[in-house]
């Protein structure tokens, strides 16, 4: 038990010093010292609650994705059936319970319609994304399959993560962390952010731009009462637009979506000094826009952003260049924000901020300072108590404690773990609990000596008999800590990390390192009696 061959000593010291060395960059860094060339050495990350910054949890509504899919399918069905030859006539289109259904005018068309629509039911993958059924001989019902819906949601979320990343990059923030979490959530962490409000506004804007024809037949009174003609839909004007509080009836299908933009810039219209956003379509979008404007010259169309009408100008002439201007009583700020959102692309699904944690940079620095002071005072108290109670053996415990803190810091730096505010409390707890193992050992040695055992036997038994309880206690603590890690997020997880790593390091320092030192002392001095 007390024999330490040289190779074992060298190995233990090597482990100890390697981890302690890994702690140095972080320690020196926190003291304000920069390590010139060695700045690439791993350092402990500071959590947002210490470094300052914003943590946002965004959630997408899967129903929005499903709704969008249904609308796309309706549009695709319309195009497919209208282009069939001879044209298949249908009506009574309805969307309910997430399914799309319509009645063919001639039941005889059913097989031909099935043949035309069947390819639409398969997605880009090889999975069936929609089920096509016929009821009562002429009503066709399109139901999204589970795997199709899941695939669409997944695609939308992957797209959303990309859009969020682009928008944050356009805001010029440093080192953001953007992680998909679960099926419908995205975690965004932005360190050192000055204005979380602007970020939230940027992320809250879906930036789904649509151009839809105004329903000229709609009666203003009906529109105001919320009654739309068949095939039309009523949209409100956006807050802050020229016609705020009014409504516009537009044709549901046949418009185009602005998700094929190549650029968007905020600017000022020279003629009337109005803030505008100029947009450029990609080739395909440009062609569609040209076609729409050519076919509908002198007709009004509505520019709809996220379900609200910005403005509803007239196509004075065909717009062929693939570029357009949007005006809608913008301020310079809102024009700029819209330009950024359009440039980074529309979010495939609207996101909502469901959790926000923002900490200013001053508060974090203050927390570190006061936490450090408390830890130093606490450590001095623990060390004093240990040395006063166990003398030489308390000194060993103290040195072990110092190494324990260093190894713990080093392990956190190597593992790239994050130190949070509760993590500081975890450090203090670790300091208080790490010496527990030494208490158990030393008390056992006292007991053994009292029973009249020789020094060597007493120490040997002390380590052996105490280690059982030490392992049991640390393993149960480890279980509680692991559950805390599973349960917690962010700051709490930082607490769990320190506790759990601290358990492992304290068993190493308090049990193994002190045993090595004690055995060295016993072998070197061969004391007849020890003061414990």
């Amino acid at each position, binding site marked *: 038990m007390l024999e330490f061959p040289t190779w074992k000593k060298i190995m233990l010291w090597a482990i100890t010093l390697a981890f302690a060395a890994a702690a140095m960059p972080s320690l020196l860094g926190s003291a304000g010292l920069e390590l010139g060339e060695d700045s690439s050495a791993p350092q402990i990350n500071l959590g947002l609650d210490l470094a300052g910054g914003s943590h946002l949890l965004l959630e997408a509504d899967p129903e929005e994705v499903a709704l969008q899919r249904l609308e796309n399918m309706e549009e695709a069905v319309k195009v497919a059936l209208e282009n069939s030859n001879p044209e298949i006539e249908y009506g009574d289109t309805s969307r309910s319970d997430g399914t799309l259904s319509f009645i063919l005018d001639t039941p005889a068309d059913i097989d031909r319609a099935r043949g035309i629509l069947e390819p639409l039911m398969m997605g880009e993958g090889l999975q069936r994304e929609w089920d096509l059924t016929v009821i009562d001989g002429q009503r066709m019902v399109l139901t999204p399959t589970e795997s199709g819906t899941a695939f669409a949601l997944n695609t939308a979320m992957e797209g959303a993560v990309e859009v969020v990343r682009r928008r944050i990059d356009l805001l010029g923030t440093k080192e953001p962390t953007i992680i998909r979490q679960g099926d419908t959530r995205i975690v965004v962490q932005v360190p050192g952010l000055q204005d979380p409000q602007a970020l939230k506004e940027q992320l809250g804007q879906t930036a789904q731009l649509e151009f839809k024809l105004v329903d000229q037949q709609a009666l203003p009174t009906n529109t105001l009462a919320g009654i739309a003609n068949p095939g039309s839909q009523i949209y409100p004007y956006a807050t802050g637009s020229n016609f705020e509080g009014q409504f516009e009836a537009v044709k549901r299908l046949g418009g185009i979506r602005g998700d094929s933009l190549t650029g968007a810039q905020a600017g000022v219209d020279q003629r009337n000094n109005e803030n505008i956003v100029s947009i450029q379509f990609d080739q395909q979008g440009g062609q569609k826009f040209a076609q729409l404007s050519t076919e509908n010259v002198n007709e009004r169309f509505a520019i709809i952003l996220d379900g609200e009408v910005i403005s509803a100008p007239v196509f004075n002439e065909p717009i062929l260049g693939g570029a357009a201007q949007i005006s809608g009583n913008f301020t310079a700020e809102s024009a700029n924000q819209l330009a950024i959102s359009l440039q980074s692309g529309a979010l495939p699904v609207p996101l909502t901020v469901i959790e926000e*944690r923002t900490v200013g940079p001053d508060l974090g620095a203050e927390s570190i300072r006061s936490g450090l002071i408390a830890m130093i005072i606490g450590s001095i108290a623990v060390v004093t108590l240990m040395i006063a109670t166990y003398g030489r053996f308390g000194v060993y415990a103290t040195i072990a404690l110092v190494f324990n803190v260093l190894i713990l810091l080093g392990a956190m730096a190597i593992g790239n773990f994050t130190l949070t505010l509760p993590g500081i409390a975890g450090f203090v707890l670790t300091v208080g*609990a790490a010496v527990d193992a030494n208490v158990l050992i030393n008390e056992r040695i006292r007991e053994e000596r009292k029973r009249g055992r020789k020094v060597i036997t007493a120490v040997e038994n002390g380590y052996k008999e105490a280690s059982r309880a030490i392992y049991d206690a640390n393993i149960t603590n480890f279980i509680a800590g692991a*559950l805390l890690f599973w349960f917690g997020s962010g700051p709490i997880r930082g607490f769990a990390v320190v506790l759990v790593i601290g358990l492992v390091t304290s068993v190493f320092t308090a049990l193994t390192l002190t045993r090595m030192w004690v055995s060295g002392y016993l072998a070197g001095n061969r004391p007849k009696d020890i003061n414990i």
Partner: protein
Amino acid sequence: MKLLKLVPQDTNIKFLKFRTPFFIFSLLLMVASWALVATMGLNYGVDFAGGQQIRATFTETAEAPVVELRETISALESVNDPVVQRFGEPNEVSIRVKLPPEAEGNPDFANQMTNSIVVALQDGYPDIRIDGVDSVGGKVAGEFRSDAVLALLAAMLMVALYIWIRFEWQFGVGALFALFHDVSVTLGMFALFQLEFSLQIIAAILAIIGYSLNDTIVVYDRVRENLKKYRKMPLPELLDLSVNETLARTVMTSLTLLVALVPLLMFGPSSLFGLVAAITAGLFIGTYSSVYLASPILIWLGVTSDSFVPQETEADIQEKKVLGQL
């Protein structure tokens, strides 16, 4: 050098003499705790109730206008009973607003509320500096609540299971009961004093579960050793002996933790106060339960020397050597 001995050697305190009154007292304490939780409820912070907690500093005003702030924020739409308190220095405040019932089913509600409060603060007080915002939506808060219950139950059951495997089932049950007592009384205290109950407190309770067990394990380890050593000793006597023999350890381990925690309580960051205070209180509760609950319950559950396979361990042999029996 004369070394400090906090606990005199060879104590012989009859801890178990009053085991029944103490046990009844503990049971009553647990019942009272749950009654308090049921009637008064826990004062959920934003983590569990949803809503906002905003911390702010007035950079050019010596004292934060707490009363005026309360009025400003109350005047906002759908804000009921904001809690505005000083937090730390006189020019620092914490503002807590819970989610109103109409937030149900609207995931964006919490965020909109945060925005309107922050804007109102910045418009009304030019020298205000927003130090921190915690805004939690209703759905997330609900998930935190169910996860917290799950984590606490799983922690208690899993450590009890471990003790069962390492010792005997009676010890597992005893440890579980002691832990349940610790968690109950901690919750009862939070209900009684209406202290803010947040995610940090769950972290504290999980830490308490760990540290409370440390003492229990030390006592149980000695009980097991003594059960093998003194086969004929009546159990109450043997338990008393075990608790007395390990008393110095129990006191020392709790004390080292206490002296480390107190400075953090006094000088540490104010936002850690709840966490540290809960662990400190749990330290006392846990030490009490290790001595007065975890041990006597072994008597009622009928632990005997035969609970452990009667075989001579090395400790036995050495003990006999010492006593000159071999």
